[in-house]
């Protein structure tokens, strides 16, 4: 069985800051990490490898520095790694990104047919959750998003049973390989790498593929291949009025609390009525 795990290197978004004067993003010194949502999918792929045996290839599209994320994935137990990198890919939106990644998956499949593609549920920098479904649609794979558990996988019949989180409950789905899976966060915990994998990852010779190698058409990647354009980037406007600051009669918690409640009920008299009615009803 051949599993491809698509990962993305992202800036640790918790650490991004905006320059107070120029309003631009300050990227310097922000560490790059594997998109945290991808790790749940990578771990699930590695568990399938442990369970039924599989070759796990990690694939990423990004600048050359994304190599570090691939090596990290190798050190956790992935077998092979492909870096899809080309200046022509710059500016790709989700449609163009799924096209480029699909071209690489097709090339991988020429050597070794792909049974499962794992993607992260979404990225922490783009937050779109669109690339996984895009890849599934292009490949004609069954699309299994927000998976909480892989219940069963039968390699002989190529049948897979999964639990999928949906609004108000969990769907238990049975389908056939090949499929594209995105795992829900918190469904597993990424393992620690083994020492021998760590050494192997350091020495591993990455496959670096450009657009020419995968045969992706130039007009379908990058800005040219992207239907969406960013027409404006801006800092959210502060509300016209700042908060009305509550002044308590004394500098004690009780006085502050009393003043806060007066201010709340003053601003929202109806809220006071609602609360009192509920309290009176004994709720």
């Amino acid at each position, binding site marked *: 069985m051949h599993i491809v795990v698509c990962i993305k290197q992202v800036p640790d978004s918790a650490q991004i800051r905006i320059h107070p004067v120029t309003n631009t993003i300050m990227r310097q010194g922000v560490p790059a990490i594997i998109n945290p949502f991808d790790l749940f999918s990578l771990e699930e792929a590695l568990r399938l490898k442990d369970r039924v045996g599989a070759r796990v290839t990690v694939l990423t599209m990004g600048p050359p520095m994304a190599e570090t994320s691939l090596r990290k994935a190798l050190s956790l137990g992935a077998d092979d790694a492909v870096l899809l990198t080309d200046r022509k890919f710059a500016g790709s939106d989700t449609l163009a990104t799924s096209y480029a990644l699909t071209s690489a998956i097709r090339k991988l499949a020429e050597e070794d047919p792909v049974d499962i593609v794992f993607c992260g549920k979404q990225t922490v920098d783009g937050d779109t959750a669109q690339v996984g479904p*895009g890849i599934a649609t292009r490949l004609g794979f069954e699309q299994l998003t927000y998976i909480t558990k892989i219940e069963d996988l039968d390699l002989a019949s190529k049948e897979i049973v999964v639990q999928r989180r949906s609004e108000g409950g*969990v769907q238990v789905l049975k389908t056939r390989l090949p499929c594209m899976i995105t795992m829900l966060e918190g469904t597993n915990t990424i393992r620690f790498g083994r020492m021998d994998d760590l050494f192997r990852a350091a020495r591993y010779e990455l496959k670096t593929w450009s657009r020419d190698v995968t045969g992706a058409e130039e007009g379908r990647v990058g800005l040219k291949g992207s239907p969406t354009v960013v027409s404006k980037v801006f800092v959210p406007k502060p509300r016209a009025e*700042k908060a009305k600051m509550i002044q308590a009669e004394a500098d004690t*918690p009780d006085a502050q609390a009393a003043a806060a409640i007066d201010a709340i009920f003053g601003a929202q008299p109806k809220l006071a009525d609602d609360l009192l009615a509920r309290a009176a009803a004994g709720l």
Partner: protein
Amino acid sequence: MSEPSKPQGRKFQLPDHLKVYQNVWVIVEQERGIVHSVSLELLGEARKLADKLGVEVGAVVLGADSPALDRICGDAIGFGADIVYKVTDPALADYRTDPYCRVMTDVVNTHKPEIVLLGATTLGRDLAGAIATTLATGLTADCTELDIYADNRSLAATRPTFGGTLLCTIQTLAYRPQMATVRPRVMAMPERDDARSGRVIEIRPDLREEDIVTKVLTFIADREQSEAQLAFADIIVSAGKGLGKVENMKLVFDLARVLGGEVGVTRPLVQAGWATNDRQVGQTGKTVRPKLYIAAGISGAIQHRVGMEKSDLILAINTDPNATIFDFAHLGLVGDALTILPALTDAFGRRLSVNRMAG
């Protein structure tokens, strides 16, 4: 990746062959006969967009034919639709990507809407990505604001970016339809108008179950509805890193209990393991719009702000008088949440119990 830039693309004029695409659609999400509230919110938003464009609002309702589905078609008209495309087939009873995507792309190709909106739910995100790829058109996820550029009638879809530190406005230029998803409770729920009338177009796609690979074996309904409770709570007391340590979480739970409300948290608290992620309010958590939002020890990062700024009344408690949260809270209290929270719990408890005795 784009850096802050001047508005661009607004001068773009649509080629003639795409001008036949008209009307603003909402794909109405229903599962087991219950319509998701986000679809009704989107109908209200679609109404505004369609009125600006001078076109009609279409609602697409998919499922197995049933009285419940007819009721939903009526709801769609009451909440703003002029046309309902009622698409029925036994194979559409449960949501599955493949049949839903196939049917939707057919309906779009036949009726040619210029804008298609979906809720950013597990269903909406799963379906939107598949449809947009099949149609090879633009899709913007998790929008917080939708508008029309008057110059060229195109959709201006605004969403947070870079983990919610900035907002960006995205357009789909030479492609139709323009697609967007919007998270629940980001848009206001419109008033239902029973006097509204609309027409229902019935579509029977004639799917063959044997052509559909994925089967739904069972559906396990959630017993615990804590997520729904937070999302629809009238009162939310939220905690940020300012609470200092996990033991102090008790203070927000105490106040929430007295008020009959729910507890929310910021992302760092989830990351620190102080609360489960179903309580997270913000860009990567829930969007809420309660009547009262009490933010205790929350600095006001944009990541958090986008999830709660539509609350009717926001009271912020923070020791730092320059905290960002005071820029968008309605009421501010400079002080230590650790002492003010218990005082609020006592004071609210007294006021409410006094009234109970009086009543």
